[in-house]
């Protein structure tokens, strides 16, 4: 692939992989990346930021006049994590949706919402396939049209998989699956963001009026988002797009304390400064952490100015040291960072009461016990070199802390598609810079992946954007260097959809207007519809 087949990118510098700088020094005028006005069809599976950024990039390339992009989305609503992941009190982050809307209105672009590709199922060997966490989109969606990947392939010159990471990484400890009031932070996020698959499932299980103490396991931005939503005055959320039912629940909340627990120390924090600052600035909310550990981390930081992400870590530690303006003594609510702790077991609230009924049938009917405490192993940091990269190792000591609810925020993994090479360890589609490869490292022609599905669940929207741009450029370069072939036949969506409804972009705009209208009535940004059924009824 070096030199000759590589194309120089058109005006693609900000995101571009700079293809072969060496080649351009000797060529007098390297051709810009162009799709050569050929009639390419590209299918994109997954309508989140990765899919939309890739689509916008492809349709912005030189020579893309005859390129067509079809984007498939499981839900009737587009935007993926911009809609269901980004916190409701961060509406400015969702401004990226405006660009996606511009792309979607391009006549070369089509949106196929409410379409499930591939009968998404976990690959048989998936270690997490037997777990009981709430992952309703594992099975075919009862309302979505079902189309297999293989039935799409004849219609597209390239298919780009961008359906993200919809499974949770597990703690793998006793009590995780059996106790009530234990959720994945993602489910919780999806609940307060009105995700159709989680809203109705979680709503009856969450009762914030019955608990005061929440433990969040994991210290990334999702953990901090969850903590902020729990600690913030609900009145400060009303203007955004939090569903009314969720606002009601938050108003009833008796939560006084949120502990955010990590297996490593302050220098290894995974969250970003903005999220720490927001928590520190919440009115009436105090903060505490282990001052000695923090001091130790500050010293280490001063001794290692060249460490990874040194600037951000330094600023984050500064924020922790400064703490909240609200003193703990006068705080109505509070949060803490707990370091060097790994949960070993979740204990039932009534663990000592031994619910040993002799009647098995009654046991099955009884509601599960509520979580009452977390049993932790205490860690130390080991390793050498960059202190931000140290690992946690158990000291053998343990400790137990009481709690009323546990939210697990230790990362995500993706779901494989039948016939798609999947890296079980990392929970992503096997790929090399976005080209899907098999276990032997051979490229599967015409298949690409980007976003969290390709590189794992981390980074902000900008990270996904750069990744999507680069993958789109790679895909386009491959297409433009391919030998000319007959134009692909258009996907016969009307035949494939069966009796299911496919949601077009115009349909979504109708839903969007309705949500905004309902929101306006209540003085908020939008009132999300939280059921697929309702959306489809409005469109019928």
């Amino acid at each position, binding site marked *: 692939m070096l030199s000759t087949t590589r194309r120089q990118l058109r005006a693609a510098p*900000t995101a571009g992989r*700079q293809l072969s700088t060496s080649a351009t020094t000797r060529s007098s005028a390297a051709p810009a990346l162009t799709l050569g006005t050929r009639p390419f069809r590209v299918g994109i599976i997954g309508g989140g930021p990765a899919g939309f950024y890739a689509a916008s990039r492809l349709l912005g390339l030189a020579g893309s006049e005859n390129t067509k992009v079809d984007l498939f989305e499981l839900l009737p609503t587009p935007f993926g994590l911009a809609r269901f992941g980004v916190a409701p009190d961060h509406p400015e982050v969702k401004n990226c949706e405006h660009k996606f809307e511009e792309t979607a209105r391009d006549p070369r672009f089509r949106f196929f919402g409410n379409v499930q590709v591939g009968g998404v199922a976990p690959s048989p060997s998936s270690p997490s396939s037997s777990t009981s966490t709430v992952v309703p989109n594992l099975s075919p969606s009862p309302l979505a049209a079902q189309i297999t990947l293989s039935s799409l392939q004849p219609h597209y010159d390239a298919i780009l998989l961008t359906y993200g990471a919809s499974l949770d990484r597990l703690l793998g400890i006793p009590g995780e699956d059996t106790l009530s009031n234990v959720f994945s932070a993602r489910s919780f996020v999806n609940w307060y963001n009105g995700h159709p698959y989680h809203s109705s499932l979680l709503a009856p299980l969450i009762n914030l009026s019955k608990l005061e103490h929440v433990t969040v396991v994991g210290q990334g931005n999702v953990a901090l988002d969850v903590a902020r939503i729990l600690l913030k005055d609900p009145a400060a959320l009303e203007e955004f797009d939090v569903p009314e039912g969720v606002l009601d629940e938050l108003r009833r909340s008796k939560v006084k304390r949120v502990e955010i627990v990590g297996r490593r120390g302050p220098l290894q924090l995974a969250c970003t400064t903005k999220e720490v600052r927001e928590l520190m600035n919440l009115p009436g909310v105090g903060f505490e952490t282990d001052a000695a550990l923090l001091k130790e981390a500050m010293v280490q930081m001063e001794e290692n100015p060249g460490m990874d992400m040194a600037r951000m870590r330094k600023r984050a530690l500064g924020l922790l040291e400064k703490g909240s303006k609200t003193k703990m003594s006068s705080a109505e609510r509070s949060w803490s960072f707990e370091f060097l702790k790994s949960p070993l077991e979740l204990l039932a609230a009534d663990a000592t009461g031994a619910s040993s009924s002799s009647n098995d049938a009654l046991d099955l009917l009884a509601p599960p016990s509520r979580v009452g405490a977390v049993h932790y192993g205490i860690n130390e940091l080991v390793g050498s070199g960059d202190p931000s990269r140290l690992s946690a190792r158990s000291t053998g000591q343990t400790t137990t802390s009481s709690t009323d609810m546990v939210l697990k925020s230790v990362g995500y993994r993706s779901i494989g598609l039948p016939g798609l090479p999947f890296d079980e360890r990392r929970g992503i589609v096997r790929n090399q810079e976005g080209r899907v490869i098999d276990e032997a490292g051979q490229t599967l022609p015409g298949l690409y992946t980007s976003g969290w599905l390709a590189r794992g669940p981390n980074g902000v929207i900008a990270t996904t954007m*750069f990744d999507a741009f680069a993958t789109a450029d790679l895909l386009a370069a491959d297409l433009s260097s391919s030998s000319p072939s007959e134009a692909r036949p258009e996907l016969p969506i009307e035949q494939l959809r069966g009796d299911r409804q496919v949601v077009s972009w115009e349909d979504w705009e109708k839903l969007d207007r309705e949500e905004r209208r309902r929101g306006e009535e209540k003085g908020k940004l939008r009132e999300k519809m939280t059921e697929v059924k309702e959306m489809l009824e409005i469109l019928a």
Partner: protein
Amino acid sequence: MFSRSVARLIIARPSPASAVRALATSASSPSAGAPSRFLAPAAKHNQLIQRAFSNSAALAHGGKGRPKKGEGITLHFKKSNGEIETVEANEGDDIVDVSWEWDLDIEAACEKSIACSTCHVILEDDIYDKLEEPSDDENDMLDLAFGLTDTSRLGCQVKVTKEMDGTTITLPSATRNLRVDGSKPTPH
């Protein structure tokens, strides 16, 4: 809007490989193949206007217009591939305005609300020193910027001043090798 199709002033510095690139790019760049984003048909534009009650600052991503030739402040933008693009800007516009006006490939995903780092630019030392310190919010976003330097700013927070006349603003290179979590990509 259609002024975008006016040929740009592209100055290829007589230095390294960038000169070749600049020429190659200039031939194909003005609005070629970018129909959706900037050449919005009137209908689409109206639709956007109707929806402007939402929280968006700049839906159509238009610039704020260009100064008369020879009367603006000259800015050189150095792109990550080494190409230099020279434009004239109005005093008081911010760098993202200038980018939107001249189609300079600064993404500005959050539309200037200090919620992302995609408009990250690198300034010359003396220009950086004359600016007010970045706010905490801006610094929080700069923490996440790709290829951060000592004179990095968010373009949306930098207003064009007369003192900037002739300065070079560098757009950082961002590749998939630079990740927000700092991890090196591994073959998988």
